[in-house]
């Protein structure tokens, strides 16, 4: 082709642009399926819920149930544990948000906002640091101690010391009757 300085697009320009555009769009269109195939599938996402009978759980006891592949702690707190938790001012907590799926995101981490009924503490049993399962009734605050990296939670599952950034999450749950809850 003769050398030309015309500003008019040539047929060669057209082929360059068309090829690059088709390649770019094709690459982007192919990239998303390749990335998204790793995300949880619809069958995993389908919101599963479980029901749990509270009546066998005694005060001071904790039962672990499986929900969405994760452990959920169902803990019946003693009056002493509730009182200890209520005595802590929210301003002294590392994470001052309730992290309660049943309340707005801005709810404060008071003991009241961590439970629906004060006696029953329902938590996702996964340390907010790196996902280990904390040990119950251990640590300096009588709540939970994570064996992996030493995070300590109080009797409302709130982070008090250690590397975990957030309080243990409270999953969505509701009381179906005084002794029966539905998680999820």
């Amino acid at each position: 082709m003769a050398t030309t300085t015309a500003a008019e697009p040539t047929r060669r320009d057209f082929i360059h642009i068309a090829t690059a555009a088709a390649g770019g769009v094709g690459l982007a269109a192919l990239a998303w399926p390749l990335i998204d195939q790793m995300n949880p599938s619809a069958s995993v996402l389908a919101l599963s819920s479980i029901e749990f009978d509270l009546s066998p759980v005694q005060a001071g006891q904790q039962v672990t149930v499986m929900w969405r592949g994760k452990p959920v702690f169902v803990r019946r707190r003693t009056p002493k544990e509730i009182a200890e938790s209520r005595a802590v001012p929210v301003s002294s907590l590392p994470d001052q948000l309730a992290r309660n799926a049943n309340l707005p995101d801005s709810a404060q981490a008071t003991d009241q906002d961590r439970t629906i009924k004060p006696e029953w503490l329902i938590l996702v049993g996964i340390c907010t640091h790196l996902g280990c399962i904390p040990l119950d009734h251990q640590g300096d605050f009588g709540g939970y101690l994570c064996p992996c990296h030493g995070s300590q939670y109080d009797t409302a599952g709130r982070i008090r010391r250690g590397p975990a950034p957030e309080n243990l999450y409270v999953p969505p749950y509701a009381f179906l009757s005084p002794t029966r809850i539905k998680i999820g």
Partner: protein
Amino acid sequence: MAGHSTYVPKTRFARWLDERLPILRLANDTMMTFPTPRNLNFWYSFGGILTFMLGMQIVTGIVLAMHYVPAANMAFDSVENIMRDVNYGWLLRYMHSNGASFFFLAVYIHIFRGLYYGSYKAPREVLWILGVIIYVLMIATAFLGYVLPWGQMSFWAATVITNLFSSIDQILPHAGTAVTQWLWGGFAVGDPTLNRFFSLHYLLPFIIAGVVVLHIWALHVPGNNNPLGIDVRGPQDTVPFHPYYTVKDASYLCLFVILYAIVVFYLPNSLVEPDNYVPANPLVTPPEIVPEWYLLPFYAMLRSIPQKLIGVIVLFGALVTLLFVPWLDTSGVRSMRFRPLAKQFFWALVVDCVLLGYLGAHRPDAVFPGTAIPMLPFARLGTAYYFAYFWIILPLLGLIETPRPLPATIATSVTGHGVEQVNAPAE
């Protein structure tokens, strides 16, 4: 030293092939006649040992994949089947699992060798960076492989490491959770996670092999560094790679393999956590989660930081730091043989890494046995020294240290004749 080829085809077939695909010429130039400094010592034999270990891991791994089932409900049993029923399965698996440990043992010696003799300095920066990339790929591969037996340690290692990415939540809310769920393919580590980890564990060694080719290519352009750290001046400073270093590398490889065999046959479980012979249980975290020994120093760094995001940044920062070493070391002298101050800080770094490894194996609230001295301050001090060595000490030493005089040439240093000396630094 990538001079022109001296290859002369000896047979008609070799001549015929050379005109079509000069593969024999390539082999001859890189593995036979390649001029190599005549003073390379024991510590230079680990490149060959590492190549051998990579081959060993790929061969045993491909065979194990013929018997392994990457499904959460069958993975553990299939590994037990390999151990009990598959002919020589126990041997292949022990060679593979302990092979990873010896691969890392060799790579650590190789890395510290490079740090001591200044092998990362100009003109070998790209060679060094490719090595760091290989090391990071090795860590990823080893982690993925550790998950496959689906024991308790496998499961919880996968949980902890994938959760490192959830720390992104502290910068971009919900982004970290999205990334971790994307990695898991669910709301927790499970079947989809195991399947993809197996796929990637099979893939990465071949990527490593590809980067190793680049690493060796980048080595063959400037040629080997050597214990004196001075440039090769001419043919009197070198010997052909074969037979001199093929024999030397092969004999040290034999010693290394004897050590490897002792562990495979007599101490096959000495380096693994017994908890990994308990099938994975998503409801119970083992009382103590520790990674394999070769990752303990990084684990100690992670645990010494009380803030999640910063801990993760420090962990990855320790690796990323290595990429910058060629520019952080300001000294014109390569080998620490001639750097009296740097040498002391180097050995302190070696001790520091061993200490961090020891601390990484213990709970963060632990005390030294028989004392009331807590370990945590030492882990923090050790972490600080690691970073200080690279970001403060190396840059400053180049400015204040007076190196000892360098020998004029490799040949004079080796033969001891005519020890004429030039003043350093004369880069």
